[in-house]
Structure formats: C-alpha cells, structure tokens
C-alpha cells in the first residue's frame, strides 16, 4: 500500500537542508515557500531517502486571496506519495518558479495552469496557452472569471 507521506514528516526532513523553506505543514501536505519550491523539488527528487522521481500531477486551486499550486509527488521505488503546496499571491500577476527543469512532466501541466488559472511559472521557456487559443482573454478556471458577452449575435435572438 502506498505510503502517503505526512506533511509534518516532510517538513521535518526538509528543515535541516532548507531551514526557512517550509511555511506550515499538516497531516497531508507541506506548504513550501514559493521562492524555494524548485530547490526543494530538486532535493526531493535526487535525495535517495525521498527519491520522488515522478511528478504525478501539478495543478492549482484559486482561493481568491491567493492561488495554491499543488504538487503531487510519487516515489516509485519507495511506493510513497507526497503533497507539496505553494501559495502564489496577487491576482494581477501571480507567479512561481518553474519545476519543469526538475521533472519533464511538469511542462504541459504548468502551461495548463498558466492557461486556465493565470499562475505564471518563471524560468521556463514556451509558457503559452495550451487548452484555449492564442489571444483568449482571461483565465477561465479562476473563481471570478466571467465569460465576456459574445461579440456577435445570431440572427434570431441568442
């Protein structure tokens, strides 16, 4: 059975190497300082005691006052998962360091988060829209997104 690493345990393990990186932790997840997220991820990937070689998923949740980017890590050798979260503040231009240099699999997912949530990722190339089209206005998965009125109307109502 997969071990879901507790956030507190993860925070404990990280404290030594990154003293200021962990903001808070609970039984499920550890909240990482946004500026340190790429380094923490690199450490968790390469450290044999953690060995999180796979980024299972990367997504974001809009909590209105901030965006929470969720990193779900899987260690195939230890059969363990870990949950990292990082908060991106601001609604104008929230951004986080990219982890696509750590895991290749983050590439498309970061683009998706940028497209739908509007959280930018720094230090990576090719951050452009993926599911919506170029020139789309806004980021549809935000809680405050409203669909703009259609610039045209059908001949008979609508």
């Amino acid at each position, binding site marked *: 059975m997969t071990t879901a690493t507790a956030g507190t345990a993860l925070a404990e393990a990280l404290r030594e190497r990154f003293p200021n990186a962990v903001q808070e932790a609970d039984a499920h997840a550890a909240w990482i300082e946004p500026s340190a997220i790429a380094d923490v991820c690199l450490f968790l990937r390469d450290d044999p005691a953690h060995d999180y070689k796979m980024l299972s*998923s990367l997504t974001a949740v809009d909590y209105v006052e901030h965006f929470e980017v969720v990193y779900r890590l899987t260690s195939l050798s230890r059969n363990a998962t870990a949950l990292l979260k990082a908060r991106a503040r601001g609604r104008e231009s929230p951004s986080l360091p990219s982890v696509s240099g750590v895991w290749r699999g983050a590439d498309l*997912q970061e683009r998706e988060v940028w497209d739908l949530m509007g959280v930018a990722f720094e230090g990576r190339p090719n951050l452009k829209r993926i599911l919506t089209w170029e020139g789309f206005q806004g980021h549809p998965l935000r809680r405050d997104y409203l669909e703009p009125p259609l610039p045209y109307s059908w001949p008979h109502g609508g």
Partner: protein
Amino acid sequence: MTLRTEPVVVNVGPHHPSTHGVFRMKLTFDGENIIDAEPVIGYLHRGTEKLAEERQYTQVITLTDRLDYVSSMTNNQAYVLSCERLVGIEPPARGKYLRVIAAELQRVASHLIGVGFFLQELGVFGGTALMYAFRERERILDMFEMLCGARITLSYMRIGGVLQDAPEEFWPSLRSFLDDMPGYADEMQALVFESEIVRARAIGVAPVSAEDAVAASFTGPILRASGVAWDWRKAAPYDVYDQVEFEVPTCEGGDNYDRFWVRMQEVRQSLRIIEQCCAQIEPGPVRATMAMLFRPPPGEAYVPIEAPKGELGFYLVSDGSIAPYRCHVRSPSFMSLTLFREMLVGWKLADAIVTLGSLDFNMGEVDR
C-alpha cells in the same frame, strides 16, 4: 551543383484520419524526416473542471463519462472513489466487486480499441484488425447495456456503490465472453504481433527509456512498456484489487511494439481478474444508503486509479457546500503528450502516426 532541401511545415490535423479526434501536430519535415514537432491541443476543451464547480457531486459523474469516452467506467470509478474518500463512506462488498468487473471489462474494451487503431495506423485497409477488435468490444458494450442501459456514456458507478445489481442475463454473457476472449486475444496476437511487417514497422521505433518515462510523468501501459512495473492497482489497491491475484506485465524496449505488447498482456490479466471476481462475489447490497444531496466536510481528496491509459485521479477540494470547490482531472492522456517532440523527431511521417497510435491517448481526456 549541390542539392538543397527546404524544411516543410505540415499541419497534420485537426481534421486528419488518424489523429484520435481533433488533435493537431505541427510537423516540420526535411523530406520525409521529421525535424521538429509540436502538439497543438485544445480543440475538444469543454471546460469539464469549470463545469464541475457548479454541479452537485452526484451530477459530476455524467461529466466524467465524457472525458475518456472509450473508457467511461474507469472515469466514473476514479471520480466516485475520490468522492467517497471525501465523504468517508465505504461501498458494500458486492458493489466493489461489480465495480472491478466493470472496470476490467472497460480496460479490455479500451485496449482493444488501442490495438485495433494501432493496426489501422499501420495501414491495414479499412481496419481488418480494427473490425475484429470492435467485434469483441461490441460484446462488452452489450454487457454494459445490461448493467446500466447505456453503452458509451455509462454513469454506472455511484458514490457509495454502483447504480444497480447486474441483471440475471449479465452473468451468462460474461461467462461466454470470458471463455471466448482468450482465443480472440491469441488470434489478434498472431495477426498483429507475429506479423513481420508489424515488427519491421514497430520494433525499435520511438523508444522511451525508463528514466525519461518516469520524469515525463508517463503512467499506465506506456510506462510499463519502458520497464517500470508501476500499477496503482498493486501500489495502492482500491476497491477489491487486494483480493485478486494478477501480474503487472512489463517490457524492456519502450518502443511502439512494446507498448502494444503490454496492452495485449494486460487484456489477459484483466480477464484473470474478472474470473476471480466472479468466483468471489457474494449476494448483497450494491450501494450504500446515503443522501442524494450531501455536503462533504471541507477538505480535499485524491485517489489515483489505474485507468486503461494510466494514472487517473480527481483532485476534489470541498468547501463544505454541495458542489466541489475545485475538481482537477489528472489525465494520463494529457501527460503522454509530454515527450511528443522527443519521440517524433528524427523519425518519418509514417512512424509519427504509428507512435501516436501507440501512445493511445484520447482527446476527450487530453483537452477535458
């Protein structure tokens, strides 16, 4: 005189016979060789995640049907498992067994489509193998129709169990399917995997190493073809997968041929699982009693399952209301496009098409 070639950019898709729906690849050719490739997706984006935010938890099940529309059962399963984790209820045993039977039938159906389209893309006119695969898939769809009245968009699984118990006529047809299918699998194997042309076309083409596959978040058959024996049914057994015995087939090469070899072996393992479930299943209720409209406590849940195409999970965040605050779909098909460029560059157009087929992604799931 020196001969010079000029790179040609060709848009393959979104309307193309073998792009699995509306997928577009921007390929740059030097002659027949691909020198650059870029996937362009989003043509089937329906905003499932946004739609889920304004529906009750039970209503989202019908949305999940439309994600990977050739394996709705497992989509349902992934969603209801996350919901159950969120609410904290446990379905009755018979419900769990029925879920596993349905999910494994769905896996067989999905892999049949995968293998059928693989041969289609290798160029058997009109898809002889595709027709053979669809012939068997048809029987599975008939069984699904007995279970829930639908054939494609099933919505069979419910939070706390399944819609209803299997009717009387389901079991004999399941029995005859289990008896026939190994023979058809042998037949397909002889047609596909022992054909010299298929071997010449597929072995060694577009290989992915184990390290690359893991780093690129590949899951499911395409990860196992690279030699990583990772299967969520083994790693974190859900429903009754801890009650049944099965193996996780792997290959070494990670090329197109191996990806299909793994799928064909998984079909056999699925049949094995269904056999065991049929032997173990006991009469009883199939669905826990719970309110249609419920408010789960604030929190979040994510249960990864092994869908036919890889790790599928719904990340549900609840704020205590009747609708999910956030519903993110971790879709395996989307991830399998990560190495798109690396897999295609240097190969030829014909290889690119076959490689797409071997990834076996589904645009409904890629674009969500």
